[in-house]
């Protein structure tokens, strides 16, 4: 407003450049640079070379960042003028996100699934139903932009769990969301469904981002700062405008609950999971969940930790609603991806149960659960991408009939993963559930655990139904074809399945890691 140049000058002179601890931010920076390089590669590299360079670049970047995360372990500091926090839970979740991203890149890079190429469309701009649209289904091309988009999204996720400041958190939210909106629209088959998914996700996501931003504004109005630590301090003092506080809490929660897919903000999940290319769905289901939970934990544990008696009932309500909606609606699904989407909703509910314990055990349990769930769900979606008809994925449940007879190994693996999702002992799903439920009972949330267990039983029913279809029914005459050559997808399924088994049988190392992270706590 003010046009007086001297005043402006005087103000700028007062600003000292923030000291940036580049080494501590290295995981974020590596991924960010890789994303930028990816954009350049897409602009300049020849078409054929991109399909090789891009996945290698992205994967290499993720591995490098993972190494950086490992090197940083034990760091406990607020960086970049209070914008970013690096502490044990953050590093744990950043590492988790990177591992899941790595697995998802393998799925995106898979090109032996279809007659032509991978799950990503050749040219997203072609109108569905037009002449070019049918041609591109068999084109060997793909939109290699998918890789940099994914890497950008990972940058956002890693920043999301590390942000110590609500504005940075909002920026991270956008960095992680916008590429995902695009990625959802890139499915090679069923273009209309895919575009619908992208549109729906974008509109609802933008709406929820607005809620989040509004919440940030109220938080600032209340505390005079957007830093999580300062908000926490303000919560402890009297004489502030409590209305702003509660409004801010409610609005921020809406934004975050949307991202984790908690009821009643879950309605995008089935449509988006169904329409998005399956590798992207896997990536979203695992990665976004970790990121959103990381942010949720930071906001609830740090900024509003002093208010836990106020938000606990809300959390209980949302958790119960989420579990019931997820479990019950999954019963009625006939599409395997939609079913897994509702199962993701139910699992978000189980995670919230761990959070409701509001103790260190809850933090540990939630982090452990996120890892177990991510591995299992990525592997499950990878299996889904293997069962195909001439028309793309055989996502309708009836097409899975008798798969146990025709491809016993695949069906057996998928059954194992489903049993893990159902939480049968000796799978990681059970250890994860045990960890969060134990935390909840420890934190006096026993009724919530009973609801969670009943929902688990309901959920078990629809997982088991798929096993029944696969093993106890006669195969269809014109059944789906299981693709046998996709090494990358096999690798993902293998890693996910082995992780599911190992974390079920010998979870102690990871529990130790989560325990160390949880007890060292968040930095403020």
């Amino acid at each position, binding site marked *: 407003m003010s046009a007086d140049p001297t005043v402006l000058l005087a103000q700028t002179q007062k600003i000292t450049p923030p000291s940036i601890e580049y080494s501590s931010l290295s995981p974020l920076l590596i991924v960010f640079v890789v994303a930028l390089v990816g954009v350049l590669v897409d602009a300049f590299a020849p078409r054929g070379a991109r399909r090789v360079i891009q996945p290698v670049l992205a994967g290499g970047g993720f591995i490098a960042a993972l190494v950086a995360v490992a090197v940083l372990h034990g760091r406990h500091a607020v960086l970049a003028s209070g914008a970013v926090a690096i502490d044990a839970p953050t590093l744990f979740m950043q590492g988790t996100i990177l591992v899941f991203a790595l697995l998802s890149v393998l799925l995106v890079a898979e090109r032996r699934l279809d007659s032509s190429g991978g799950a990503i469309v050749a040219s997203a701009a072609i109108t569905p139903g037009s002449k070019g649209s049918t041609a591109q289904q068999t084109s060997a091309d793909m939109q290699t932009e998918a890789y940099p988009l994914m890497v950008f999204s990972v940058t956002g996720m890693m920043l999301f769990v590390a942000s110590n400041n609500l504005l940075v958190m909002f920026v991270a939210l956008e960095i992680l969301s916008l590429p995902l909106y695009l990625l959802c629209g890139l499915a090679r088959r069923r273009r209309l469904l895919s575009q619908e998914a992208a549109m729906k996700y974008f509109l609802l996501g933008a709406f929820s981002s607005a809620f989040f931003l509004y919440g940030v504004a109220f938080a600032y109005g209340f505390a005079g700062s957007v830093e999580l630590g300062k908000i926490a301090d303000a919560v402890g003092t009297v004489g502030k405008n409590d209305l702003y506080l509660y409004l801010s809490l409610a609005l921020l929660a809406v934004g975050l609950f949307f991202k984790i897919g908690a009821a009643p903000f879950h309605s995008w999940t089935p449509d988006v999971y169904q329409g998005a290319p399956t590798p992207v769905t896997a990536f979203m289901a695992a990665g976004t969940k970790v990121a959103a939970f990381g942010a949720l934990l930071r906001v609830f544990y740090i900024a509003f930790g002093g208010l836990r008696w106020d938000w606990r009932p809300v959390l209980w309500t949302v958790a119960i609603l989420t579990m019931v909606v997820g479990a019950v609606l999954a019963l009625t699904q006939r599409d395997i991806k939609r079913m897994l989407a509702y199962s993701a909703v139910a699992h978000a509910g189980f995670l919230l149960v761990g959070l409701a314990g509001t103790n260190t055990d809850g933090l540990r349990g939630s982090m452990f659960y996120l890892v177990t769930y991510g591995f299992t769900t990525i592997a499950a979606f990878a299996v889904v991408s*293997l069962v195909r008809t001439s028309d793309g994925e055989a996502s309708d449940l009836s097409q899975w009939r008798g798969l146990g*007879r*025709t491809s*016993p190994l695949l069906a057996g693996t998928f059954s194992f993963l489903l049993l893990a999702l159902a939480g049968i002992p000796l799978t990681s799903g059970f250890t994860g559930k045990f960890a969060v439920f134990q935390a909840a009972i420890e934190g006096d949330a026993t009724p919530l655990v009973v609801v969670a267990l009943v929902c688990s039983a309901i959920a078990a*029913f629809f997982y*088991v139904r798929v*096993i029944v279809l696969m093993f106890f029914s006669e*195969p269809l*005459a014109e059944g789906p074809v299981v693709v046998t050559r996709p090494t990358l997808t096999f690798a993902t399924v293998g890693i996910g399945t082995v992780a599911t088994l190992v974390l079920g049988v010998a979870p102690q190392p990871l529990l130790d890691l989560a325990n160390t992270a949880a007890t060292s706590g968040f930095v403020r």
Partner: protein
Amino acid sequence: MNTVPWLTILLIVPAAGAVVVAALPRRHATLAKQLALGITLAVLVLAVLATFAYDPDKAGFQFGQSYDWISTFGISYSVGADGISLVLMLLAALLVPVVVLSSWDEVDGGDAAGTGRVPAPAPAPDAGGSPGQVGDGGIGGAGGIAGAGAGAGAGGVGGGSGGGTAVALAAPPVVTAAAPAQVATPAGRSVPAFFALLLALEAGMIGVFAATDVFLFYVFFEAMLIPMYFLIGSYGPVKEQAQRSYAAVKFLVYSLLGGLLMLAAVIGLYVVSADNLGHGTFDFATLRQMEITPGVQKLLFLGFFVAFAIKAPLFPFHTWLPDAGAQSPTGGAVLLVGVLDKVGTFGLIRYCIPLFPDAADYFAPLVLGLAVVGIFYGALLAIGQRDMKRLVAYTSLAHFGFIALGLFAFTSQAGTGAVLYMVNHGLSTGLLFLVVGFLVSRRGTRDVGAYGGLAKVTPVLAGVFLLAGLSSLALPGTNSFVSEFLVLVGTFTANKALAIVATCGIVLAAIYVLYLYQRTMTGPIVHEENRVLHDLGLREKLVVAPMVALIVALGVYPKPLLDIIRPTVTATYADIGKSDPAPTHPAAAHPASVHPASVQPGGHS
């Protein structure tokens, strides 16, 4: 301590065996069978050796081993055996090889040498027609010749049904006509998978009895469901696809629901232990010493009890049993009712009573009431059944009533009787299921009406059937008499009214057993097909021989088992402050007053 880790060996042998057998390609069906039989016999030998190594007079768990597993939650791999778990492990180790032998030809329809000598009108509906359905003719024997013949005719199409051009993921290449006999497997059922499931089930059963860590127990309790689920769903009656899926899902969901309620109680127990002791633990011996407030006890008791009541099953939680029993393959049904369900009653005496003594006391009238209702309800429904497998399943409901009655009478006599009852029921009902299975494999139907007058055609089968039935109704001289008598005497000293009511249930037992025998084995031969049924083959005789021998031997001389069981049971009740009521009348008066009643049904026969 003992240096031989008996229990771990008992656990690892079948588990490793399951992996090995499962890894066998489908065409090596015979090898899979032989391996399974060898492994299960080895387990039996090991279990018998362990029994000899067991010292019944020592208190506490023997063969104990404990290693940290998930130390964050105080979970350890701890195993140990007491008198109760030892005899049940022995029962499991005995029944599994029997089941393996009895299921020899059940999955692949049998080759001509086995039960295939069936002159009965073999349906062979789809022979040659639709390749995928080759050998869909009937369960086991009925489809025998038809299956083998058609299989040979149709060449190698049977196995890889539908997968011709498809790229079946790692499906064993069953495409060449190299092994025509195995190709006859109905609807692509895999023989190695079946026996691998049996072995996995055996590992689970031994684990569940051996665990002395509550968490480990829970893990086995739930993990055991999965092989059973696949046994029912994949290997149940070929033609009843919808029913067996239904039965399998019902079984799994019921058990899971109970299991999850128990999980809540297990976690609750852990949290209580963390509050009481400062560090959470799942170690049974430690938990047992812990004082829990009565209010919490009641909640935790209910969590465990519902799971065990579903498993056992007790009266209102039983509805899955008839379905699961009828739709299991015969071997599966024997293990389901013979051993798996015992986990429920075992859990009652191992966990519910010692961990929550006040709650057990409080809920005892309820449990006793349900037990007595179960005795009558099960017996009455059994009388009304036409489906033989369902009938046997319902009789089990009555038997489980007796077991629960004995456990919650809180006298060492009744408790010992109840544990012995668990073993005896496994033998007698197991044999009953086996014989019914033989009948069904000959005629392909479970309907009682399809039989009649078989004693003339198949005298040996009829004789075994009668013996199994008489053991089931606890005729003196058979094994069950001893246990039923002990349960009733022990209950009488604690609660006269219930004992008298329960005794009347024996009359009903006589009705369902004798009525069943009468309708199937005696009278004129109504159906012409039945004239040509063949008697028990050598394999089948080998299957029933050990069971028959044990039924008679334990009926005459039950002391070895009682010596193992009694000290543990007495210690369990003494631990919770339940000593046997001192006899106020001359001791002989009680048995004398009950004795005639319990012998009465025997008189009718």
